[in-house]
């Protein structure tokens, strides 16, 4: 009898999955649910980007296996340890396979709704501790939400243990598995824990891990986006550990440097050209509002649409006979289409009525404003006005669209502000900013009137997307150069130039969207993109 089943993957070829994982995990409804959770919100831009969390999880498992094989070899070579590295490696691979099993529909868009009242992590963390059954683990769970893992990571650890308990023989095993998925490292400084922390950082970290590696490779492959090749085999076969300040951490042999540069480049390119593309940002934005609306309509006291119960096979009943189990994208689509139809649902399905970006890249934006200001204080003033307007809009649910009611609201706020008692500096800055925002919205209102289109605009910031990749942390990753006497260690940041590229430049960029005329049957002719840009610039700056 075969011990493995082979699954063909377009990137890695055949992935060997142990039969017991195939039967008891992959083929269960809880894991199959991932086939109906889309991996990205890129499909409005790249039509083929309909890959899901299922194929990604299989890919992460494959890369996890390569990692385990190399890491065990390196640990054995460098440290004389009696710990069960094979057992640790097996749990790590299990965590790789199940790292997304608790993912919310539409990936990151909906996961915030897993949290308790006021977006509090306490409930989720308490459930995790209870599931593991080890109070001791709680000391390494951050007390502050500011340091907490993503909600779907905590949910995945909980579901992984609850649903696939037969793979754990002890509380310690459950704990290590949960730590791999959440990235909560051991604080206790034993050498065993130190080595376990190295494994944990290969699944959940701010640097290269197998999760990020698979999505970078897979997203590029599926979309067809032309980017650099990431030689994952070369990278992971260069994996090692190095000692720093008395502790072991993940490092790479020098052979990996070229691949590391490519990883940084691929990450930056995906972020710049796909993740922060206005069409992708807009898709995520309307979904976020739709999911918020559905949760508000469906949540009933302690029963929540986005919850452990809804993800389970048993599911739960809500009011009006609504029943949800194995919650996935399909359920959200059904609800937004049949039960709680809204203007946003209409936009989701009827793509031609979506708002359109006035410029589709920073390059296009620059081309529009270049002959008015090639840089300097005028451009700075304009960008500041757009940026504060966007921030004002995105921070509240009922004022995200620039329309007549928003203008009235802003006018009223300004009026109240003048008579409100507060420190002079705050009042000055608030008034100055309200004036700026009003200039932007009045300019758009007047443009809409001139062109006989509805005053209905949205501004989105590129910074709304978080990739989880931290260049400062990545800079600290060690590279090992083998020498006659042993190893010479150098930090990536000191030897790889690609790291120097700033991450935040594009983050602070913004996009303006407008509503096209109804029944428009000609291409793009209802507004002149450069004209609106010029008017806005002139009205705001002068």
């Amino acid at each position: 009898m075969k011990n493995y089943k082979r699954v063909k993957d377009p990137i890695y070829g055949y992935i060997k999955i142990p039969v017991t994982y195939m039967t008891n995990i992959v083929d269960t409804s809880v894991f199959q649910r991932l086939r109906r959770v889309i991996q990205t919100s890129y499909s409005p831009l790249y039509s083929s980007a309909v890959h899901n969390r299922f194929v990604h999880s299989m890919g992460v498992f494959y890369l996890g296996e390569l990692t385990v094989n190399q890491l065990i070899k390196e640990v054995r070579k460098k440290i004389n340890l009696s710990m069960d590295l094979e057992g640790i490696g097996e749990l790590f691979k299990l965590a790789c396979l199940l790292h997304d099993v608790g993912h919310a529909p539409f990936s990151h868009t909906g996961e915030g709704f897993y949290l308790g009242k006021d977006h509090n992590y306490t409930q989720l963390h308490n459930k995790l501790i209870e599931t593991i059954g080890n109070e001791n683990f709680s000391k390494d769970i951050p007390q502050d939400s500011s340091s907490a893992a993503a909600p779907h990571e905590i949910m995945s650890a909980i579901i992984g243990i609850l649903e696939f308990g037969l793979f754990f023989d002890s509380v310690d095993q459950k704990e290590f598995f949960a730590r791999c998925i959440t990235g909560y490292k051991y604080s206790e400084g034993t050498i065993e824990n130190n080595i376990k922390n190295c494994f944990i950082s290969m699944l959940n970290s701010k640097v290269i891990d197998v999760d990020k590696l698979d999505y970078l490779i897979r997203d590029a492959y599926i979309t067809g986006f032309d980017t650099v090749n990431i030689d994952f085999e070369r990278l992971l076969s260069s994996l090692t550990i190095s000692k720093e300040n008395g502790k072991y951490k993940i490092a790479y042999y020098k052979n990996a440097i070229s691949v590391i540069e490519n990883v940084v480049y691929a990450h930056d390119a995906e972020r710049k050209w796909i993740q922060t593309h206005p069409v992708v940002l807009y898709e995520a934005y309307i979904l976020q509002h739709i999911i918020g609306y559905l949760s508000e309509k469906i949540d009933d006291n302690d029963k929540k649409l986005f919850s452990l119960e809804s993800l389970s096979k048993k599911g739960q009943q809500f009011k009006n006979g609504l029943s949800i189990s194995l919650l996935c994208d399909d359920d959200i689509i059904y609800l937004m289409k049949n039960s709680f139809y809204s203007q946003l649902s209409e936009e989701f399905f009827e793509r031609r009525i979506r708002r359109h970006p006035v410029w589709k890249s920073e390059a296009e934006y620059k081309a529009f404003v270049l002959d008015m200001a090639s840089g300097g204080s005028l451009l700075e003033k304009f960008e500041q006005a757009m940026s504060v307007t966007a921030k004002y809009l995105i921070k509240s649910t009922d004022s995200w669209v620039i329309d007549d009611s928003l203008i009235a609201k802003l006018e009223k706020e300004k009026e109240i502000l003048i008579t409100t008692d507060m420190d002079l500096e705050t009042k000055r800055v608030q008034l100055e900013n309200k004036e700026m925002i009003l200039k932007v919205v009045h300019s758009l209102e007047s443009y809409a009137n001139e062109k006989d289109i509805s005053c209905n605009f949205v501004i989105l910031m590129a910074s709304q997307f978080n990739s989880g990749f931290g260049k400062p942390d990545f800079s600290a990753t060690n590279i090992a150069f083998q020498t006659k006497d042993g190893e010479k260690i150098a930090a990536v940041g000191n030897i790889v130039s690609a790291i120097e590229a700033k991450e935040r430049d594009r983050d602070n960029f913004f996009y303006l969207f407008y509503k096209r005329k109804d029944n428009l049957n000609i291409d793009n002719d209802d507004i002149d993109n450069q004209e609106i840009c010029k008017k806005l610039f002139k009205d705001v700056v002068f």
Partner: protein
Amino acid sequence: MCFYIGIEDLAANAMIEMLKKGVRRFLTYNEIEMYGAEVVQILRENGEKAVLILSRENTDALFRNYSEFFEESEQNGKRGIKLKENKEVEDLIQQFRGYLALDVLLAFMNQRSVQVLGA
């Protein structure tokens, strides 16, 4: 209506209130979150809903996007956010107060919220 309050708004506004009283340039994550909970409570009493957007990812984004203002630090074994030496209260107000909706700003400046910070 629901306001989304991010870690950058909370940290900066809590820091402004502390600096106005000339107290300190470091706040623990716990202090920032307690301040946030009070802000949410005040907004709720005024008939507005608000949620705090806090997570490791958001905190990382804060240090990435506002690295000229903040750095992570540890004092007395407690981790938190420190204002960089070359930044003063006026810089924070200029950067983090202008875009706020008035209701949120007033909740940030409310005496009850400020008291939570021990100022």
